[in-house]
């Protein structure tokens, strides 16, 4: 459902979409039932001259069941949602699959800086490529990102990847994603970071393996032979 508004760019986007769909169905059902009953009661029990309201305390067992059954059913729905929510959460945030490549993402007022490994695919070597506001990755590759901030809180958010994580000064937060589609995607800063928050936009370019190798070759810092 949510993919109608924002398409799926990562391996776990579909899982999050499904969770949202489950919640929409369950909570939508309860919303419709409650609203329908509310409007029906308002319509049905409008004041008619000469007709007196009933005296119902709501404290007898057979009256209470009208509250307790919905209550129990909501509990069941809650449990279903909790199970699915935690499964998705575990998959996206807790259980990091083996990285095929690792990048650094650094937030600062008001730009994103990226450090990507060069041809050796090892971070922290001389052929690392550093860019501002443009991140290049290979499709169908599991990436780990090391998220940092140099000043205030930022949030590394790629809506089409269903990816969002705060960057915190003084910490390195590790997360993962696996792009499944080539193309260019928006990267937002989704945490208020000062007067430039609204311009802290950057691009995520997902390329095929060949395109990516070409890009890496053309951006490797001059004078660094790729071992």
């Amino acid at each position: 459902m949510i993919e109608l508004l924002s398409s799926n760019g990562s391996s776990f986007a579909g899982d999050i979409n499904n969770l949202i769909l489950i919640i929409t169905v369950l909570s939508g059902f309860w919303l419709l039932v409650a609203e329908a009953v509310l409007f029906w009661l308002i319509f049905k029990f409008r004041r008619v001259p000469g007709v007196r309201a009933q005296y119902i305390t709501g404290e007898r067992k057979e009256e209470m069941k009208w509250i307790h059954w919905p209550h129990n059913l909501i509990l069941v729905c809650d449990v279903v949602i909790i199970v699915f929510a935690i499964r998705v959460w575990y998959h996206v945030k807790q259980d990091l699959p083996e990285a095929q490549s690792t990048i650094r993402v650094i937030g600062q007022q008001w730009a994103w800086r990226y450090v990507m490994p060069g041809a050796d695919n090892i971070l922290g070597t001389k052929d690392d490529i550093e860019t501002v506001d443009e991140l290049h990755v290979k499709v169908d590759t599991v990436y780990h990102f090391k998220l940092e901030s140099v000043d205030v809180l930022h949030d590394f958010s790629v809506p089409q990847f269903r990816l969002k994580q705060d960057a915190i000064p003084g910490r390195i937060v590790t997360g993962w994603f696996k792009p499944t589609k080539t193309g260019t995607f928006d990267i937002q800063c989704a945490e208020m970071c000062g007067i430039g928050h609204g311009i802290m936009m950057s691009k995520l370019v997902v390329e095929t393996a060949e395109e990516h190798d070409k890009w890496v070759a053309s951006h490797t810092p001059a004078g660094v032979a790729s071992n």
Partner: protein
Amino acid sequence: MATSHAEHHDHHEMSFWEKYIFPLDHKVIGMQYLFTGILMGVLGAYFSYVFRMQLAFPGTEVPLFGLVTSAQYNSLITNHGTIMIFWFAMPILVAAFGNYLIPLMIGADDMVFPRINRLSYQIFFISVLVLIASFLVHNGGFGGAWTAYPPLSAKAEYNLTPWGSILWLVAVVLEFVAFLLGGINFITTLMNSRARGMKMNDIPIVCWMIVLASILFMASAGPLIAGAAMLLFDQTIGTGFFDPARGGDPILWQHLFWFFGHPEVYVVFLPAMGIVAEVITTFSRKKLFAYKVVLFTTFATGILSFFVWAHHQFIAGIDPRLANIFTVTTLLISIPIAEMLFVYIATLYGGAIELTTAMLFALGFLATFLIGGVTGVFLGASGADIYFHDTYFVLAHFHYTFVPIAVIAVFAGLYYWFPKMFGRFMNETLGKIHFWGTMIGFNGIFMPLFFTGAAGDHRRIFDYSNFPELAVSSLQNLRTLATICVVITILFQFVFFWNFFYSMFKGKVCTEKNPWKANTLEWFAASPPPHGNFPVMPEVYRGPYEFSTPGRELDYWPQNEKA
């Protein structure tokens, strides 16, 4: 004894100064809170008008404001949030209704501590002045969002508002002091000053709700006040409580803030539920369905509300395992809230519903708050929150809770108690125009924002044209629609203001003490009640919702009427 006390209050004419500027009378203090809250609400609404205009028509001059810079934009959204929670919702729902209603509804002549009560308003008034001063200092008001996350809020080099952020924080702390003083008063008064014969189960729900809200506030405010002191030291004398470079931790603030911030939602929610309970029982001539269940679900909500705070921080860098615990607690809190709403809906069954303006607003509260409630499930479920966090979906969700609470329920209360407060009626036709204008306008603002949020619109963005995925005409049309509805909603409030102020002086006179034929004790006092409230201190013989009792000719049975 009680009679002589009431006479004692009347025996000298008070000057205007004594009566309205430095009052001890709970009703006048309630009115001070009410009118200050309304004025601040107007300011907050004006801010929302300015930033919504900027979003709909970026970079053009906003009528009645001018060009909006990004620094101004941030300050406008920050202070809109701050004002609407701390200087509009709380003063009206807790302080104005609490002060006005609690002594009247429990049959007391005043609060237990009238001087503390007066001090509470005076400190609140100073907090208003400090907040307004924060807009006028060098570099303008604070713009780091109402949550004020450090390091942005802690260092002027980051937020660029060296004075605005300090004054903003001082204003918030002063406001807290005011509400702590007020809360002590509400709790003590309810526990000690009830009319003879009023047992725990005879207390009107609205009094319970305001007092429980005050208890929640008092229990949750401590950590935030400690946090605020630390933040103030970080801002002013260079400590490093939230500075990681010096061993501090910015996440600490988030825990302190949300440990307060989530119970705070219920601090304003409960009084609104209380008001709605009074209105729907009176205008459906029904006993409240399962009074005790309402109380127990309120206790359950209050206790659970202390264990859900980190759902605001799922992706903030907390240990991801922690998110699982808070998902469970957050979804569990849906149960007492849903049960409470079901009880209210069940109350309508078998009623004789009269759709007065007050009743329309009370029913409108139920209809719209349900939407706010169910959309919260998306955000409480950690996996889905990854996508929705900090988008307009969140914003639409909490406006579907806060607008029903702080606007719709407040209108229900004002239309309902207006004859008691001012001894005159408001105009019902204008009231209904106001109701429909407000409801249609309000839904028109926030329905589209669920969709822009679900499409990826993130919050606190000055201009979406920088984001190619978001700078598309379909989303921009929805943003413009929301803005148009903001303007429509604001315009319909002029109908209310005209009705309110005109009726206060020229409205149809309410000659009866009890125009709505309700049961609670405030309707036993004159309209408006004099200083000291009651001619004879009332005694209570039954619960507050004995409507349509079988075997009685009248369909109501005042609490103070001897059997």
